[in-house]
């Protein structure tokens, strides 16, 4: 028995040491400040405690589908032309909601097998269905559609992470949010100027260099009439700002731009902020080898033609090709210096595959975080002291036992937080306090049962034995139910609420060990030292 007790005590001390290490690690010094610093290093504080910005972004995945569908339309048109098959129209009837639905009109029934052939060879991701009156519907296979959307979200996460890393935000969280709603959660602790960061994250940064056929026109009407009312095939009207040296306010103008691009942002190797010969800020970029070859081929064959730099479907600059350009270029668009720096950075980080917008934005100022820590810790200490004191008064000797168990419980809980890298939030601190209140329940259950057994005339050792045995079943049941609700909170909750679920769960798990095992060892130790028949101090 004594031997057994010794081993159990050793186990308890070992567990305790491990979790104390979990809380503090190896502190640089044992002074109060050294310990506090070590504690903060191990335990991550949530945004609500250290201040910062919490954002939820919606990725407009239909943008990515739309891009794919438009490429598919071009490929079908090309293929039909190559085979000399006549068609009336190929378009998306509902690009906003069902961008992957493409309707082909006017392909005669004789050629339906050709169309089937084209779709199966050129568009393996799409299905073809034939309708009435020479109409066919091409739509993306459901599995491919889901994959494309998920890929867009992953790419967006990657791009945003690149951008935020370059801004030097420490410990950002960027991850998919919710279940299949194409949302991204971004947490930026301690960001000084969230408005700028948000703008940088949101910028799509689709850079394309395309041929310009004409412009500037002051309105769309003018552009149409200049081209006899029809836009030339393969061209599109895009807005831009007038970049004249006439001074005055820049106003919106229109350019006639090629639909296909010579190079895009994907072909960039590097981009940086620079200045033009007049000292105005601009952005210069270098192309990859592959992109450079294509650009050289294009500019070589188009000397004298005009070239447009298009960013997010807005024309930034139109210039005449003087000579063959190999692998570098400049974007000049009346930028401020900060804008050129941000643009260069955004271009380096790559384009977003789809536009994003913000669904939720919560910013906690650093002053509030500091107050919350103070209030939370104060409430925790007061609540804890009240419980410790009550247990001493109510249960005397056994109260010490419960208090020791409670303090161990707290150490293990904090150690868990340190080891797991889980985040401590303000509701999380509340969870710690609740753990104290609910954790003491196990002790109360056991003690009340022991008292009952003693009243029924049992000897102290057998009362303790019976008390623990009976209470154990109840304790397991109560813990399981609370952990079930904490688990559901963890799944559904975000940020602060998740932190609460984590501390509550850890606290209750630790409680199983402390209230049942540690308490029992202390009782056995006390009983061992007592004379046979001596009373147990349990109030």
């Amino acid at each position, binding site marked *: 028995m004594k031997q057994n007790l010794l081993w159990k005590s050793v186990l308890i001390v070992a567990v305790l040491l491990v979790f104390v290490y979990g809380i503090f690690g190896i502190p640089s010094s044992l002074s109060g400040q050294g310990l506090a610093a070590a504690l903060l290093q191990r335990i991550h504080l949530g945004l609500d405690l250290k201040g910062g910005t919490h954002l*939820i972004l919606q990725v407009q995945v239909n943008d990515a589908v739309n891009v794919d569908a438009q490429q598919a339309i071009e490929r079908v048109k090309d293929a039909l032309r190559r085979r000399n098959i006549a068609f009336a129209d190929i378009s998306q009837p509902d690009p906003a909601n069902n961008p992957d639905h493409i309707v082909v009109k006017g392909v005669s029934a004789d050629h339906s097998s050709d169309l089937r052939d084209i779709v199966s060879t050129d568009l393996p991701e799409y299905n073809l269905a034939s309708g009435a009156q020479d109409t066919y519907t091409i739509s993306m296979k459901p599995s491919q559609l889901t994959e494309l959307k998920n890929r867009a979200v992953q790419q967006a996460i990657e791009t945003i992470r690149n951008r935020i890393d370059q801004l030097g935000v420490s410990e950002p969280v960027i991850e998919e949010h919710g279940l299949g*709603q194409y949302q991204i959660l971004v947490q930026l602790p301690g960001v*000084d*100027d969230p*408005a700028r960061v948000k703008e940088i994250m949101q910028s799509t940064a689709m850079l394309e260099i395309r041929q310009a056929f004409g412009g500037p026109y002051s309105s769309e009407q003018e552009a149409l009439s200049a081209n006899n009312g029809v836009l030339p095939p393969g061209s599109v009207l895009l807005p831009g700002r007038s970049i004249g040296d006439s001074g005055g306010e820049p106003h919106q103008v229109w350019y006639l731009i090629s639909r296909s691009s010579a190079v895009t942002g994907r072909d960039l190797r590097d981009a940086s902020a620079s200045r033009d010969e007049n000292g105005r800020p601009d952005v210069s970029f270098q192309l990859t080898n592959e992109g450079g070859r294509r650009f050289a081929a294009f500019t070589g064959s188009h000397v004298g033609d005009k070239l447009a730099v298009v960013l997010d479907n807005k024309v930034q600059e139109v210039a005449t090709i003087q000579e063959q350009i190999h692998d570098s270029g400049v974007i000049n668009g009346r930028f401020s210096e900060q804008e050129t720096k941000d643009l260069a950075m955004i271009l380096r980080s790559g384009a977003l595959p789809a536009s994003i*917008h*913000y*669904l*939720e*934005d919560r910013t*906690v*100022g650093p*002053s*509030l975080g*500091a*107050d*919350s820590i103070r*209030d*939370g810790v*104060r*409430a925790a200490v*007061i*609540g804890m002291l*009240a419980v410790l004191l*009550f*247990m001493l*008064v*109510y*249960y005397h000797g056994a109260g010490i036992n419960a208090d020791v168990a409670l303090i161990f419980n707290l150490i293990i809980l904090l150690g868990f937080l340190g080891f797991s890298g889980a985040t401590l939030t*303000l509701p999380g601190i*509340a969870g710690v*306090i*609740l753990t*104290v*209140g*609910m954790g*003491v*329940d196990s002790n*109360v*259950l056991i003690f*009340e049962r022991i008292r*009952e057994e003693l009243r029924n005339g049992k000897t102290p050792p057998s009362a303790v034995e019976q008390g623990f045995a*009976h209470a154990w079943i109840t304790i397991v*049941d*109560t813990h*399981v*139910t*609370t952990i*079930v*609700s*904490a688990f*559901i*909170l963890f*799944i*559904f*909750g975000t940020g*602060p*609420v998740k932190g*609460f679920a984590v501390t*509550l769960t850890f606290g209750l798990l630790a409680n199983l060990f402390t209230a049942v095992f540690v308490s029992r060892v202390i009782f056995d130790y006390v009983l061992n030292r007592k004379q046979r028949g001596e009373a147990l101090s349990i109030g």
Partner: protein
Amino acid sequence: MEFFRNPNIDFLSKKWYFLAFSLVFSVAGVLSMLFWHGIPLGVDFRGGTLVRVKFTSSPDINEIRALMDRAGLHSARIQRFGTAANDEVLIGLAEKETSEAALDRGRAQIISALETKLPPGKQDLNNASAQTIQAYLLSQDPMHLGTDASRRYQDMAQTIVHQRDAVQSGVLKSMDDLKTVVPEPVLASLNQGFALSNFGVRNVDVVGPQVGKQLQNQAKLAILYSLAGMLVYLWFRFELIYGVAAVVACFHDTLITVGAFSLADKEISLTVIAAILTLVGYSMNDTIVVFDRIRENIKLLRRDKLADIVNRSINQTLSRTVLTSGLTFLTVLALYLFGGEVLRGFSFALVIGILIGTYSSIAVAAPMLVAYQDWQARRSNRRTPPPAPAESRREKVRAKA
């Protein structure tokens, strides 16, 4: 010390009082939800913009309302926040003014409306970022620093922001508050480019309508799933009727707690939902302790009527129930009194819920077991002779052998 020594209270005989009590509170809550305050939803669920502002001195609500009106924010809700000594105000915009395209506009409008009293041409030091301050100092260069000016001014800007946010809890009352932390020439330069508004922004929540709806759904689902999870666990551990009784008791607690929020016109936020889920778990704890004892006593006292067994079990666990609830209540009360404004709603839900949760395990869940058995007995009396319960039949066989 001992509060209850062998209590022997006939709880079941008071079931009509219990029923009346529960009905009064549930119905009052439901009536308030339907006809009076509705279910007051916080910005988390309602969507909208909420800016929490701390002023340097006691704020004049009417003046703030006038400023908002002038900025065109006619529907802004303005209310004091926390204790009067806090000098804090919440300014809220409804969901329809928080369109998803311009999620940020409301915040910017509120802040610029409050800044109108600033002298022209000066920036607001109370709402400037460290980056803005650094850029300003770099352009003025009051210390005539050489090569490492950028780094030195960055440090200074961060010191200023730290003094404002951490030491003075969010707002500087006068430029002299910075005297101790920055050199004289820097302070003079700051005085030229900056002025102090009478407020600082502590917290901003902007929730688009889509997220609000999504969170509402999630909260409802979370509570339902958690009740369902408990039902299944209790069904597995006890019997179906135990699970049903416990879940009804928990639902009763949730209803009354939400009703209390409606009656008190307190807003339900995400953390309040967390508190309610905790209550579901907590109330379930209490119920299980009683049920466990009932199960144990049924085995020991097979001859007794279920009503007597239930009564006895409640009495045996009464001491524990009261102690645990009392202690948990104590910690929650500490949270309510000292935990600060952010947790006020959360701890309010727990304070109400722990009282109701304790009551319901004695007054709702246990009597339901007895009522169910009575009902079953009556029903089987009417139709067929009562079949002996499976377990006791087995026992009889064993007894014969």
